[in-house]
């Protein structure tokens, strides 16, 4: 493959993500397109750019890629598909979600420390709602579970990547 047709790869990636309609590991997508994972990064970058001004976008998170609708079109989608189950996050859940979003991956002890209270129940709620998920274990005594946000979280937020969150404070020194 001397001459790599990035435009064709972009189209193929777009078609695959579209028809899959679910998150896929970047590694697996690269395999499907028969390209190097590093090239995939470029292909997805181009796809993301080509979808500017469209009703769709590419979301990337934790080694996963997926195609999703943009938030400005969300109302129309809801109107048609009619799923609208109103839900609300408690201030505690909101705060916990924020800590996880900006400090992921983080242990429960880490969240507790920042919030100053035990987050067991709040964390469970976020896990059940699919906003947060386990992300392996910390290599430390007791190997505590690590938590991070999900694709669904990005979806509800309507952003392409966690990096697109506004005003990310500097990482904690610890």
């Amino acid at each position, binding site marked *: 493959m001397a001459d790599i047709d990035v435009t064709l790869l972009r189209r193929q990636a777009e*078609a695959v993500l*579209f*028809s*899959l*309609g*679910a998150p896929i590991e970047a590694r697996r997508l690269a395999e499907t397109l028969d390209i190097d994972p590093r090239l995939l990064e470029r292909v997805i970058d181009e796809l993301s750019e080509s979808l500017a001004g469209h009703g769709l976008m590419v979301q990337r998170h934790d080694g996963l890629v*997926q*195609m*999703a*609708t943009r938030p400005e079109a*969300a109302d129309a*989608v*809801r109107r048609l*598909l009619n*799923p*609208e*189950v*109103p*839900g*609300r*996050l408690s*201030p505690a859940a*909101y*705060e916990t*979600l*924020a*800590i996880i*979003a*900006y400090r992921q991956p983080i242990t429960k002890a880490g969240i507790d420390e*920042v*919030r*100053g209270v035990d987050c067991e129940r709040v964390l469970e709620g976020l896990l059940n*709602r*699919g*906003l947060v998920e386990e992300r392996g274990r910390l290599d430390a005594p007791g190997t505590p579970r690590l938590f991070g946000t999900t*694709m*669904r*979280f990005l*979806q*509800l*937020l*309507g*952003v392409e990547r966690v990096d*697109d*969150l*506004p*005003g*990310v*404070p500097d990482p904690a*020194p610890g």
Partner: protein
Amino acid sequence: MNVEVRVQTDVFEGPIDLLLTLAQRQQVDLSQVRLGDLAWDYLATIREGTGSGPVRSAEELAAFLVVATRLLALKAASLLPGPNDGETEEDLESWEEQVRVRMAEYARFKEAALELMRRHAEGGFAFPSAIEAEIVPSERLAIDAGGLAGAFQAVLDRLPAPAEVEVELTRYSLTEEMDAIRARLRVAESTSFTALFDAAAGRLHAVVIFLALLELIRAGEARFRQRDVFGDIEILRGVAVADG
């Protein structure tokens, strides 16, 4: 047509279907074909009964008749008299035209069918999206990115600034506390254990002072003595006095 009727004529040998196709493309001269021969070939096929037996369905018979009729029509059209032959001229012309149009139309659909087959075989399919319900938010959870950032900032604001914590920790340095005890023992040969902790600012400070004392005892710079069981512990200057 399921049954393959093979015909033998001077200009063509093979399936009757193919004969029709070639005749339509004018690759076979039908004027050289005696249609009666075709009928005989068909009857022969029936009598022989290839494999499945001599019984033919009405459908197959109809299929043969249609092909034969088309061949007949084609042949008739090609044998039609010229344009200056009497008064039925216009009728004949329009009839001939009709036959030609019909044949041409069928031929074009055959071409189109080949094109469809080719495209299908190429596999250039179009696939719809098979969406997972999760991609479409089913819960109207309006998480606002700005609000999320605000919530996190509020949490950070609640925490004491990291710089202050560091100052607290450096204040209770083990070496400093050891120096303080050494200084006391230089002034007086002994001091009360509890008096050592009079200056302790808190629990953590007290722990550091105690650790400093243990360190000095280990090094031989200090000793301790307790005269009675519930009495105060006395801290004495040790033999290995460090100067400075």
